[in-house]
């Protein structure tokens, strides 16, 4: 079989031949680099879907190369909305800066009585591996490069709702600009996440938290769309713990 990989130097797809057997895209890339073309550039680490290094786009959809099984004719490209450094290797520094801007951490710790239910409440959100797939899938970046983005807001939600946090207001205040209200709720991030995280729902919940801390939706006309008692629709995961 053949796969086609976007090469940055020529900005064209290059075709590589592979044996017709089941293999992960990462194994295919490693094999190509070792035996056919050492200039093919990509990044990888753990091979086990947990280090977040190898996300790319295959046929227009974000995938972890280590978790995607290659199909004949696949088109492999780098993540979107990230500066391309070379071939499939992109610059992830800016995406990570959104964590800094969102102050996604415990602001003020207080010891709390935590239960199994509390663990479940943030279990999925804390599965995030910072692979940047959700940033690549998010169409807001096409118009607003300063958007805090899905993974940072999911992380904000996870800390804001942690019972150990005694200063939820600060963290909520910090995601009002280019943050919770800038999401268009398209759910592309949710579709892209390789760990089953639902950033769209987390952002909706953050809107509710924002309202309860005295913030309002700057585009008032759409208020019904973002109300905290949202109870269905695209992207809603009935198993997400609510």
């Amino acid at each position, binding site marked *: 079989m053949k796969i086609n990989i976007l090469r940055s130097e020529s900005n064209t797809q290059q075709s590589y031949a592979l044996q017709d057997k089941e293999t*992960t895209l990462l194994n295919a890339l490693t094999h190509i680099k070792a035996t056919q073309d050492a200039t093919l550039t990509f990044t990888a680490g*753990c091979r086990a879907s947990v280090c977040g290094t190898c996300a790319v786009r295959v046929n227009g959809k974000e995938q972890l190369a280590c978790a995607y099984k290659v199909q004949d004719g696949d088109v492999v490209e780098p993540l979107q909305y990230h500066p391309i450094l070379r071939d499939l290797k992109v610059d992830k520094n800016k995406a990570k800066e959104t964590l800094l801007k969102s102050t996604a951490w415990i602001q003020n710790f207080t010891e709390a009585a935590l239960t*199994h239910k509390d663990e479940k409440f943030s279990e999925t959100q804390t599965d995030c591996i*910072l692979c940047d797939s959700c940033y690549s899938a998010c169409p807001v970046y096409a118009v607003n490069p300063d958007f805090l983005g899905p993974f940072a807001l999911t*992380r904000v939600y996870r800390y804001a709702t942690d019972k150990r946090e005694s200063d939820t207001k600060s963290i909520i205040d910090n995601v009002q600009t280019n943050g919770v209200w800038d999401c268009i709720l398209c759910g592309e991030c949710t579709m892209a996440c390789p760990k089953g995280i639902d950033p769209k729902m987390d952002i909706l919940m953050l809107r509710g938290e924002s309202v309860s801390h005295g913030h309002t939706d700057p585009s008032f006309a759409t208020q019904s769309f973002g109300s905290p008692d949202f109870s269905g629709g695209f992207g809603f995961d009935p198993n997400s713990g609510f």
Partner: protein
Amino acid sequence: MLDVLIIGSGGAGLTAALSAKERGASVLVVGKAYPTNSQTSMAQGGMNAALGNVGEDHIDSHIADTIKSAHGLCDENMVKKMCADAPKTIQWLESIGVPFSRLDNGRSGAETIAQRQMGGASAKRACYAQDYTGLKILHTLYDTCLKNNIDFLNEHYLLNLITEDGSVRGATFLDIRTGEVTQINAKSVILATGGYGSIYHGYTTNAYGSTGDGVAAVLRAGGSVSDMEFVQFHPTALKGSSILISESARGEGGYLVNTKGERFVDELKPRDVVARAIFSEFQKGEEVFLDVRHLGEETLMELLPQEVELCKLHEHVDPATQLIPIKPVAHYSMGGIDVDNMLEVNGIKGCFAVGECANAKVHGANRLGGNSLLEITAFGKFAGENASNHATNIVLHEINNHQLQQDKHYLENLYAKDHTINFYEKREGLGKIFYEKVGIVRDNVQLTEAMQTLNVIGASHKDMGLADKSPTNNTNLIDFLEFSNTLQLAPTIISSALTRDESRGAHFKTGFESLDDEKFKMHIVSHLERES
């Protein structure tokens, strides 16, 4: 000048950075990837601390279990320090927001953290976050570093330590993006660069980058490495892909069975014992499987969700209804940079090492599951303290750029030269030879053969080079430098394994099947012969 330069941005490096910064030191963390890409993310099962949240437990029991598993090769004072520091380290992780799994016991704080059984432990001692313990600790550490304005320099590959008169002065790095060689001077350096399991390329649970970069750099700078022959084989990696299935699968009640469906070992023995029992089944022509079907789908999804996914994806096996085919593969480097009881590298003043790259002599001949996340956090803090203290006593002075010039020159030559050998083939070959001849059960004939093959590969290193001549973002160059580091470390592993004519922990040698304390209750230390 920078007080503390931290090389490596996994759990050990991040904890050390937070600790040094807390003491007022200026800190920079340099890594070859991004902080959350590190091997720490792959630690699954848990982190040991004698909290006694689930049944009785004591720090003394944790110490005793660790010493027992080390088979006489640990420094008991270091073990005591690590185990005694464990509860307060968990308390600290609790305070920065690590999302641990929880009990419903009506208590508060760290007393609510769930604890599970791991091999070789006399109590349910491993604190966990499902089977994503390392991932969740690592990311929380990273968030906390951002909160504390820790500076990061990503995508910088360690070339060499800079030393003067036996003291560290900084290090040189290749900026992977630009291809420039840079020099960073510092009063203290902390190496937190990870283990060398990727020598077993293709036969390891480790990430591609676990190539012992810091360990090899210490050798080149005149420091010592020790206990290099002690490589832990994890009993349960997926048969086809060498991907890790956590020990907690057995801790939660999973069985190991052979083709006949028979159990053949107590699954909760330490890893060295279980790995050898599996190897011995292989010798009899049996295949070995992990059986967790009796735990039920609900329990599996609750306790081991990552494992279920990985089995389905990589082996087409649903653990709730099918057996999981497994094999033991290289998992953890007990040996590494030889450090003293302040974690300072023997032979290089002001240079500290922590985590898997270091041999702090807490794991000895066999590490217990749950003790590595403990080591990186408890000793990460200790390394940060010691390095910042050291920095306060250093007087500033000019540091020359000889190492920088030398490294630039080396890279220019590497780019200029032709090559006839594809080093990727040798990387495959080295991994296979190590698995087959420097593996779970060793003998002197095979070790000697491995050394001969290694010498051949080593001699042909001059004929290897870069197929990609791009100055920027050249991952072919990084692969080459990483492979070169493994080649530098490989002889120290084989020669110390050859020397050790006994069996102890993870080192098992046919013909010498028992412990020989009289001759070998000692650490085998290696260093490079210096050219005069």
